[in-house]
């Protein structure tokens, strides 16, 4: 069967994959938006994990056909299935669920380190009866093994699913770009695929690129950089994500039953069954229609009505003065569970400032990092080997003149504060923000003395 896709044109789905996309666990991805509430910034960004999974399958299918021997049909099938199923464990609002699961992980429990969507993907694959019925246990075991990436004899297969130049990124950059209505994520997919090749290093086989493909990989690297700057790290998008995460945290504090069941991870079939019943709209509707109008409800109502928090303070760590270094170090990890108390204390103090006078739960302290494209991608793409005619291969990092000319020394970590901001005129807004620029650093200094 062929499915018309706005990014790749016709996607051919073999019989087995067609059965998978009609399972209830896969259909659920139609309700999980790829970029959470980014549609509040880019109205077109309403695409879901469903079509992204199809796109990733399509690109991985092409990669497998190019890079794996024709006789290895079993391996090519496992790559296709792994690509199709790689996001099956995403929760409502995609990565926002990961953010909450991570904040509420129980460090005393052995499975605590494995509670992101990737870990839940593996658990769903291992336990979902529909998928087991369609694929069989042996195939599921092979798919899980490939996604885990622990078998070095499968390096090249794993790299098609997860590496600097994998099918996942190649699909989401083009798809997110198209649906957001921007051109930042565009690159020459066909050229990259045509230049892919195999590279044997000691006993392992890896994805490599022919020398003629260096320019197209450079374009791909910059596509990731620009999409991060313009879409993924867009100020309003970050505020939306943080507001959703805060609302869920408040719901957990208020012991909202369904949120507790969804975000307090337990490694049980019952937990996974419940988790797989939820998507974005069901969660929004359940919260907005909940008779108990608590603080969680209030923030979701704000999101629904697009009454978003604003950036009321933002400073680079390099500009922070008068803060003792150990506190500066702790502030850099303000989002970690270990610094939860520090974060809450700061948010409380900031909420009491005369310029804001709001509920403490309506103040969000956040830390975010901006890196140069080189640092951002050096670790992954620099590993990619470039195969040269009659010369030894060398790394992409050493082969790309554009990459070589970029400074690595640009890295900016910022401390942001988001809160509701009410004002009558732009001038009043500027006065409030100028005043907060003076008051909040004083609070940070006080936190160091306590």
């Amino acid at each position, binding site marked *: 069967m062929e499915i018309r896709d706005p990014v790749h044109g016709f996607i051919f789905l073999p019989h087995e994959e067609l059965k998978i996309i009609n399972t209830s666990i896969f259909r659920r991805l139609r309700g999980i938006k790829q970029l959470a509430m980014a549609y509040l910034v880019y109205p077109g960004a309403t695409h879901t994990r469903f079509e992204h999974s199809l796109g990733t399958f399509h690109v991985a299918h092409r990669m497998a056909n190019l890079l794996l021997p024709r006789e290895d049909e079993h391996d090519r099938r496992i790559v296709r299935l792994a690509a199709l199923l790689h996001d099956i464990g995403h929760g409502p609002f995609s990565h926002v669920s990961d953010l909450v699961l991570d904040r509420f992980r129980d460090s005393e429990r052995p499975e605590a380190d494995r509670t992101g969507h990737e870990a839940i993907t593996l658990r769903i694959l291992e336990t979902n009866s529909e998928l087991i019925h369609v694929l069989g246990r042996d195939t599921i075991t092979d798919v899980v093994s490939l996604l885990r990436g622990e078998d070095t004899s499968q390096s090249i297969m794993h790299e098609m699913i997860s590496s600097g130049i994998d099918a996942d990124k190649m699909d989401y950059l083009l798809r997110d770009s198209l649906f957001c209505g921007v051109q930042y994520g565009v690159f020459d997919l066909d050229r990259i695929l045509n230049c892919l090749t195999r590279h044997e290093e000691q006993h392992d086989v890896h994805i490599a690129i022919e020398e003629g493909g260096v320019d197209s990989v450079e374009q791909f690297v910059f596509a990731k950089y620009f999409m991060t700057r313009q879409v993924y790290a867009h100020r309003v998008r970050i505020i939306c994500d943080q507001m959703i995460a805060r609302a869920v945290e408040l719901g957990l504090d208020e012991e909202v039953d369904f949120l507790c069941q969804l975000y307090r991870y337990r490694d049980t079939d019952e937990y996974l069954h419940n988790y797989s019943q939820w998507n974005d709209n069901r969660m929004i509707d359940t919260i907005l229609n909940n008779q108990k109008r608590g603080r969680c409800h209030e923030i979701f109502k704000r999101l629904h009505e697009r009454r978003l928090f604003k950036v009321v303070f933002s400073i*680079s*760590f*390099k500009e*922070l003065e008068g803060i*003792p*270094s*150990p506190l*500066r*170090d702790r502030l*850099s990890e303000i989002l970690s569970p270990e610094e939860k108390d520090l974060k809450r204390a700061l948010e409380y103090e900031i909420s009491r400032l005369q310029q804001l006078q709001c509920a403490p739960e309506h103040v969000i302290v956040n830390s975010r*990092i901006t*890196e140069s494209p080189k*640092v951002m991608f*050096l*670790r992954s793409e620099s*590993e990619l080997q470039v195969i040269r005619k009659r010369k030894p291969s060398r*790394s992409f990092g050493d082969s790309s*003149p554009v990459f*070589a*000319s970029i*400074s*690595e*020394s640009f*890295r*900016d*970590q910022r401390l942001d504060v988001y809160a509701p901001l009410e004002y009558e005129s732009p001038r009043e807004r500027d006065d409030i923000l100028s005043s907060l620029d003076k008051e909040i650093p004083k609070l940070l200094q006080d936190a160091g003395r306590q």
Partner: protein
Amino acid sequence: MRGGNMKTRHIIAVLLAKSGGEILGKTKMQKEMYFLGELLQIDLGYRPHFYGPYSDEVEGGMDQLEGIGFVDMRRESLGREDQHGFEMHRCDFRLNKHGEEMASWLEHKHLAESLKIGEFIENLSAVPGGINYINLSLAAKVHHILGEKALTQAEIRKNAKDLGWKITDEDIDGAVRILETLGFIETD
């Protein structure tokens, strides 16, 4: 678990402080941290890489120190160009005043580990003929790949030859001197 709960960036900060506040080049930093991980028996996530063992965790730690504002990274020209005509360079790291304050606090908080880091730097400075990023990389590569098999100087030479490494006797001598001084191999 880090030694005494020291985070990777904290080990790097103390290493920088014990090195006079500055380390010239990312490769040198990576390889010094590799040996430090071995000596402190800390898993820093090193894996084989084109230029010897490499750790994303250490790379991330360096980036964190720069982002927090403890380290200034400077791009130093090497005064020559690559085949594309682009200038070759090296990244140098220097603790700034905030970084020095942090390192000093860490040295008191993690006294035992800091003493070991200081001892390691003293041993490195005592390597006959000195160290540079090339012989340090080779020493790390030898240790990482051959591990316990590399017991003596003669065995290292033989293994390197068997593996077909394109390195000179002088390179091997430099690497062997480092491994000997740090106590990783026996003297022939």
